[in-house]
């Protein structure tokens, strides 16, 4: 539905996600979607963890060229807000991942054009 996310670069060194599991790696797997592409998480992951297993970041900064991957993980900095395909927003660090979730790392098409115009 959304065009390929710029967060999905294919630089070989960056092919892996940011997060790595050090413990608790044997929970049931669930499938969800990042910008229309299927991805795998484990039950109990936050949305932020789930995305960072295969990505380096979760969104673009609105006011700079850089990407963002969360900052505080405790719901205080608001760095990690992303979108669902239906246009809802959610705070990735404090939202548990659920099977079948369809997430967008940029505002989905139904967002007002003005909100998207400022994005790099």
């Amino acid at each position, binding site marked *: 539905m959304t065009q390929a996310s710029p967060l999905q*670069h294919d*630089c070989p*060194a*960056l092919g*892996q996600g*940011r*997060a*790595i*599991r*050090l*413990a*608790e*790696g*044997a*929970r049931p797997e669930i499938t969800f979607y990042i910008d229309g592409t299927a991805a795998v998480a484990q*039950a*109990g*992951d*936050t949305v932020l*963890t789930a995305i*960072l*297993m295969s990505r*380096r*970041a979760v969104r673009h*900064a*609105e*006011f*700079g060229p*850089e*990407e*963002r*991957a*969360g*900052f*505080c*993980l*405790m*719901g*205080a*900095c*608001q*760095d990690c*807000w992303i979108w669902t395909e*239906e*246009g*809802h*927003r959610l*705070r990735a660090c*404090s939202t*548990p991942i659920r099977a079948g979730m369809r997430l967008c790392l940029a505002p989905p098409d139904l*967002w*007002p054009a003005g909100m998207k115009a400022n994005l790099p």
Partner: protein
Amino acid sequence: MSTVLIVGAGPAGIRAAQMLVQAGLHPVVVDEAARAGGQVYRRPPEGFLRTPAQLYGTEAGKAVRLHRDFDEMVARGQITYLPERSVVALSPKSAADGGGGVAHVLGTDRREVAYDRLILATGATDRLAPVAGWQQAGVYSLGAAQIALKAQGVSLGRRIVLAGTGPLLTLLAYQLVCAGAHVAQVLDTSPLGTQMRGGLRMAAARPWVTARGLRLRARLGRRYKAGVRLEEITGGVGGVEAIRWRDARGHSHMTECDMVGLGWHLRADGHLPDLAGAEFTFSPVYHQWMVQADELGRAGAGLYLAGDGLAILGADGAELAGALAAIACLADLGLSHPSPVGLLRRARRMARFAEGLAQAFPWPAHAVATLSHDTVICRCEGITAGCLRQTATLSGPDANRAKSLSRVGMGRCQGRYCQLAGAEIVAAATAQDVADIGRLRAQPPVRPAPIGAWLRPAGCATDPAARLAPGQRQIPLPDRDI
């Protein structure tokens, strides 16, 4: 029966609730987490398998007791527990109107919780000093890296540098190393001499705790460097790639990494106390604004503070402060309560330790004041030190005017991660003491809230099953929040 609202279910909030329950009250406890415990004793989601010893190390016993005591109060129906909800605004009533007030509580629904007395145990966040390049993906607060490890079992990078100062710097490095993460470097901005002077006071107050910190530090070996100056976090498309720093002798180093954790001890969270009407003073010890309160935590009529939001004493001190705030509340209600004397004695020892700690691991005021013009101060909106300095010539030495003109402090973190640095820069630019710049006034809502939540009336009950007034319906939030 008086309704006491407790905000926060960490060590302070839990011990406050317990003290009230023992006195026969039925407090309401609102907490943002899915499971009570707070940050230090944060619990992973259901289904995670690590033992308390693996999660909390030497503090496992305390964590288990705290969790158990809270869960028992919930199971026995002794408290009304509202997890996964934030108090985003307060409407306090004047003493002439009988005091108390209404808390606006937001989760998947919005509720208004009327209270007679309010205990705020909202804790602290990491205290952040900007470093050039800290806006990039892969820079996290130290607390974030600890939450990732504790509550998710993940590391946020393959090659990690931790920088800043304070007890969490060492503790987290040790925890990450034990968990198998690759910690390349631990960069402490506090010089060893400073640490030693404060450390003596720490050891005098709590020798065992101080020794434990030193033992952890020793385990880090040559990775740990003291008296460091952080220069820049560099990166590219995928986020952080390296950090440039100078050692205590002034030699320049570059350490490759894909994650940097930053933190300079803690910053007491003042948003809700401010909205509740508390007064603040600039504490030269903690080098930040702290709520004015008496020794038990009384901060106003019917208003009590406990935990790191009151004084940054850490988890042990927070348990004491929670009990003390509840004792003050019971005393003010004219109810019988245990004597605070023993608890106060222990709390004073914690305070002496905390003061030594603040001296050992100071806020890097000078480094912040002299940050380069192009360093981003406000991560939310990418506003630089240069921009803030420019507006300071118009705003003068006033934190709130500087915020209005520059927007530093107006982004969606609401100043939590920029306001201390911002004040330092404005103070330097206007040649004033940072204490004279003032503090940013809190503005509701203190968390981002969908406007739709206010387009419909709120539920008024604290417990949908048992406490809805006749004819009242719980109103879910609209799906769409744009």
